[in-house]
Each structure stands twice: as structure tokens, then as C-alpha cells.
């Protein structure tokens, strides 16, 4: 089957920043992404868990986005302006998709 090269960008960011990150991506013409809840974890600021929390302040979300390679720089520039000062992880991996016209 024919596949096409794409980039998968995964951004784990503090839940209160989610709306800002969405807006930044949309302003960079990235309109397709998925936001996933994150159960818990540990990092430089200590460990955390969603269990029992009544506020999003201590929680994180993961935003996953698959885009064409030529759109990557614009996405990272936009995302970096939001995540630069915040706790989180940004990573990019190569992937292949079946329907290139959707990305």
C-alpha cells in the first residue's frame, strides 16, 4: 500500500496552557490535532497524578499532531512561543500516513 512521509509532533504541557497551545497551532494553520489526558508522571518539579484532583492546575495533557514535513517549522515556532517557559516535553518523530491529502 502507498504511504506518505509525515511528522508526528507530541507535546505534553500543563493543562491550564492547553487552550493557548490550541490557539497558537490554529494560528500556524495547523487545524488537525488530538488532545489526550495524561494520568500522571514525574519530572523536575516532582511527581503528580490526576487522581482526586479538582483543579486542572496540577495536571498535564498531551497534544498529538501529524502534519506534512514542510509545515513542521511553522508549528514548532508557534508551539515554542507557548511552551517556552512552561513545564512539558516536545518531541518530533517521523511517521507514515496512508492519506496524505488529510494532513
Amino acid at each position, binding site marked *: 500500500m502507498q504511504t506518505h512521509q509525515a511528522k508526528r509532533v507530541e507535546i505534553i504541557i500543563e493543562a491550564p496552557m492547553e487552550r493557548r497551545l490550541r490557539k497558537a497551532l490554529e494560528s500556524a494553520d495547523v487545524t488537525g490535532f488530538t488532545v489526550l489526558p495524561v494520568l500522571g508522571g514525574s519530572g523536575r518539579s516532582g511527581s503528580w*497524578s490526576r487522581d*482526586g484532583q479538582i483543579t486542572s492546575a496540577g495536571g498535564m495533557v498531551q497534544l498529538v499532531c501529524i502534519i506534512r514535513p514542510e509545515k513542521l517549522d511553522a508549528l514548532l515556532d508557534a508551539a515554542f512561543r507557548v511552551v517556552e517557559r512552561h513545564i512539558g516535553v516536545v518531541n518530533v518523530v517521523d511517521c507514515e500516513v496512508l492519506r496524505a491529502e488529510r494532513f
Partner: protein
Amino acid sequence: MDGIFSLAMENLLSPLILFFILGVAAAFARSDLTFPEAAAKAMSIYLLFAIGFKGGVSVADHGLDARLVLSLIAGMILSAFIPFIAFFLLRIMSRLSTMDAAAVAAHYGSISIVTFVASTSALTGSGIISEGYMVAVAAVMEAPAILSALWLVSRKSDQQAPDAGLWREILLNGSIVLLVGSFLIGGITGQDGMAKIESFVVTPFQGVLCLFLLDMGLVAGRGLRNSASSLTPGLLAFGVLMPLIGSVFGLGAGLALGLSSGGVALLMTLSASASYIAVPAAMRVALPEANPSIYLTMSLGVTFPFNLTLGIPIYIAVARTFTGG
């Protein structure tokens, strides 16, 4: 002194406090007892809805007066002023950076609605009446402290001004919208509205509050266990001293306003409590360099348990002494 002691003992042996202690103990014992996030949020929604509605009904019963407006103004002033005291004390008592001290100070200027609910419950249990509009005072005390903390930081760094989106998030924070909305609906519908939903708003309230405090105990205990290393003796002392200092300002304001003994006790509780809903989210957006494990642990792991176990009986006893109630 006997009054404070007997109130404290009564409070410590109430189901609310015992469930909170159970939560803390379970967390320290590394039990796998947890509440799903959705269940915890549902309980907090119920409590905000119930306390707001009951406050509104109380105002409908007793009517509006100028004291309500003055109490709202006093609440805003207290919330904006207390962070300066907290910041000053933190700079003396701890080695926190300006950013961390300002973030912690914002939490102590703002309020804990669960502490407020627990205090209301203790007052009701003791048969002490309070002004129903104190719910609205609680709502207006959420945000001004954030502004003060941001100003404290902006003096010493090139911190950017918060964007308009942050203000919208703070002022239209879900807990504030629900609390104020329920308060207004309670005020509009009065006793007729209460008669229709009393079995949902009144009877299950204490049971839900017990479960919620069990969850708070678990979260507080786990926070303390995981972040104990970030708490210095100075910070621990601050976490106990600051609520007492804040309560003195609440006492002064309550007496100046001529509130009832219950109203004074609630204003003391609000001034003494530290936020862990609205302010932590605002700090993550506005001051991301501030360490969340410090301010969350201080607020939820130190000051919240103190207020719940010893603070509330002290505030009630002092308020009764000064008002003769």
C-alpha cells in the same frame, strides 16, 4: 480558652475531620485508595452548588442591606492586601525567590472554598447563624490576590503583563461562576426554590462533604509525602502563622462591618484560608517559573489541614468572644 478547647475537640471528633485524617493516613500508608478525577470534580460541583444556593436562600429570607456591599468591598480589599503581608513574611522566614514568594502569597490572599464550607458546617453544627451573603464575599475574594502577586513580581523583574485570556479565566473560573450563579438562583427562588430541591441540597450535604474531605486528605497527604523536601522549617512555620495573621485582619474587618459572630468567623476563615483551585491554575499560566510543588504543598498540605482541625474552632471562639455571640 475552655471554649476554644471544647470547640477544637468537638471539631476534631466530627466525621468531617476524621474522614480528612483518614485520607491523610491512607496517603502516608501508601494505600491505593483514590478518587477518580471526575468523581472529585463532581463532588466539588455539588458542594459549590449547594453552598451557593443555600446562601442565596438565606439572603432572600433576610433581605439585602448596605452591609452586603460593604462586606464585598472589604473582602476584595482583604484579598488584595493579605498577599503583601504574606510576601513580606515569606522573605523573612524563608529563602524563597521573589517569584516563588509571590506565588505563595497569592494563594494566601485568595480563599479556600472547602475551608469556608467546613467552617459554615461547624457554625451550623454549633447553632451559630451567619450572613448568607458571605458566599458572595468568598467569590469576590478569589481574584484580587492574584493581581497583587503579579504586581509584586513585576516590580522586581521584566515579567510580562498577563494577557486578557488569563483575566477571563480567573474571573469566569468555573467555581466562581457556579458559586455566584447558585447564590443568585437561591436568592431569586428563595424558600419556594429550596422546598423543591431541599432533599438534594440539604440532606446529602454532610455525607458528600465527608467524602470530599477524604479525597482532600488523600491529595494533601500524597502532596506532603512527595514534596516534603521542598518544605523548610520556615515555610512550615509560615503555613501555620499566616492563617492566624490573616484571620486577625478578617476579625478587624468583620467587627468594623458589624457582622454577626458567625459572619465574623467566616470572614476570619476566608482571610485565613489559602486557595488551591483558582490561584494554582492562574500561577501556572502567569508565573510558570514559580515552583508548583511549593505553593500547592503549602496551601493544601500545611494550611488547609491546620485550618480544618485547629483554625476553624479558634476563629469561631474568637469571633464569639469579640461579638459576644
